[in-house]
């Protein structure tokens, strides 16, 4: 593995499987009376959040604390920290405090990459979501959830998602979750299909390692997992689609549509859900919907990433990199 986790595209197949396998062991810690491991004792991790995201921050914080790291939360939003030079200054302040890793969420695409590569700090950088670019731990927890449900909890160890058909539906254009998932799922051998109105697909999507469709109904029967992406209501104002009603009629997942999916297929959502827009309450609350599981799995995945990046004297080595 590389020193930092910036993009899902940076992970090799072996890196990704190692993370998923490690997360599977981390998940077992949650079943124990003492949900804590001493592994990162004496390491300091900063959660540097330039953008509000309580759920992601809490997930990282839980992971860090279960591994006994010292955790510092730095929420920059709303403070004077909003301009570029402040990212550098903040980074150097953290560096001066002897921070071992920075978990960064930033509204600007590429900010974590800049933090990791500009020589501002030595710490490991973990991208917790940057603009409309990447959110690699989200993709990992999604892949983890899929592997558990579609391959098996124990029988999945050491395996990827070879041949599984995954459909992502919704606002791909503005979604870092979609970008990360396309990269990672492709690396793991899955077949990915993006379904969205043409306005919500980026120019250039044709070069991505996936299929693109404008038609949800024809895609559903060929899907092992369907991931609904959040669609913000304010997109309507920029004419990405005419009305909420029309969007949900064409691209929303309701009970009737869910019935077209194969028996074993699951419904996923990175949250927060906009019920009534991309997903109906009936689907969101059904047994096939893994939203709550995804949250649980997020902690295990983040523990695995933290351990594999910070647990030793250098990041974990995988077979492909030794060559």
């Amino acid at each position, binding site marked *: 593995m590389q020193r930092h986790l910036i993009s899902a595209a940076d992970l090799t197949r072996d890196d990704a499987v190692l993370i998923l*396998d*490690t997360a599977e062991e981390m998940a077992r810690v949650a079943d124990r*009376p003492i949900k*804590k491991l*001493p592994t990162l004792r004496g390491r300091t991790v900063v959660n540097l959040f330039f953008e509000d995201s309580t759920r992601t921050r809490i997930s990282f914080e839980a992971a860090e604390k279960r591994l006994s790291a010292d955790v510092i939360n730095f929420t920059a939003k709303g403070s004077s920290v909003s301009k570029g030079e402040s990212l550098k200054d903040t980074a150097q302040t953290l560096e001066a405090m002897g921070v071992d890793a920075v978990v960064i969420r930033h509204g600007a695409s590429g900010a974590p990459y800049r933090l990791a590569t500009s020589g501002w700090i030595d710490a490991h950088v973990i991208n917790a979501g940057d603009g409309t670019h990447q959110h690699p731990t989200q993709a990992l927890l999604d892949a983890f959830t899929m592997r558990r449900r579609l391959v098996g909890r124990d029988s999945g160890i050491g395996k990827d998602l070879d041949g599984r058909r995954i459909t992502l539906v919704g606002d791909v254009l503005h979604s870092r979750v979609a970008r990360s998932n396309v990269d990672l799922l492709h690396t793991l051998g899955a077949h990915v299909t993006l379904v969205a109105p043409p306005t919500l697909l980026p120019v250039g999507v044709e070069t991505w390692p996936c299929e693109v469709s404008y038609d949800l109904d024809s895609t559903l029967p060929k899907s092992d997992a369907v991931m609904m992406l959040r669609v913000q209501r304010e997109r309507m104002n920029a004419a990405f689609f005419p009305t909420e009603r029309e969007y949900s009629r064409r691209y929303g997942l309701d009970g009737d549509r869910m019935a077209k999916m194969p028996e074993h297929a699951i419904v996923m959502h990175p949250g927060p859900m906009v019920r009534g827009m991309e997903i109906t309450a009936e689907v969101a609350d059904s047994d096939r919907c893994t939203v709550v599981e995804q949250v649980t799995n997020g902690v295990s995945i983040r523990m695995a990433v933290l*351990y594999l990046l910070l647990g*030793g*004297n250098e990041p*974990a080595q995988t077979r492909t990199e030794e060559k």
Partner: protein
Amino acid sequence: MDTQDTQPGSPDARPVLEGPDIARVLTRIAHEIVERAKGADDVVLLGIPTRGVFLARRLAAKLEQITERKVPCGSLDITMYRDDLRMHPPRALARTEIPGDGIDGRLVVLVDDVLFSGRTIRAALDALNDIGRPRAVQLAVLVDRGHRELPIRADYVGKNLPTSLRETVKVQLAEEDGRDTVLLGAKADQ
């Protein structure tokens, strides 16, 4: 877990225990456990990955033959409790599998292949501490090669093998390596 790898088939490695010897010492250890634990009815065997787990399973089978009772057997991965984590890249984790009834109030017998510095067992004791509170903890090893760095000793020893620090001890088990043997070899020059 304290095993130091030699190159497989290292020319100067010589076997000190062969398949039948290993079976024999495991049978002896099983009898000793029954003896010391007065019937072994509250024994839980926890093997330390990788080879300790196979040894624990073999011991469990032998205990079941002797006592005609099911003996709970699991695994305890100590990777996250190691004191040398910062000296290497992170290792892949192995499975920790605690038998259904847990370890509270039980006699836990830790099982490992080689007892060397004692640091693995120290980590295992820490790991156990986070999982429950056994009545007592004992240690069974296939080979004790000496050179302890901590005040730890084994309760059941397959073979005491005096070694120098320039030597390596490699345990091979059929489940992992295709054959049962314990090899004593010279450390590869750095």
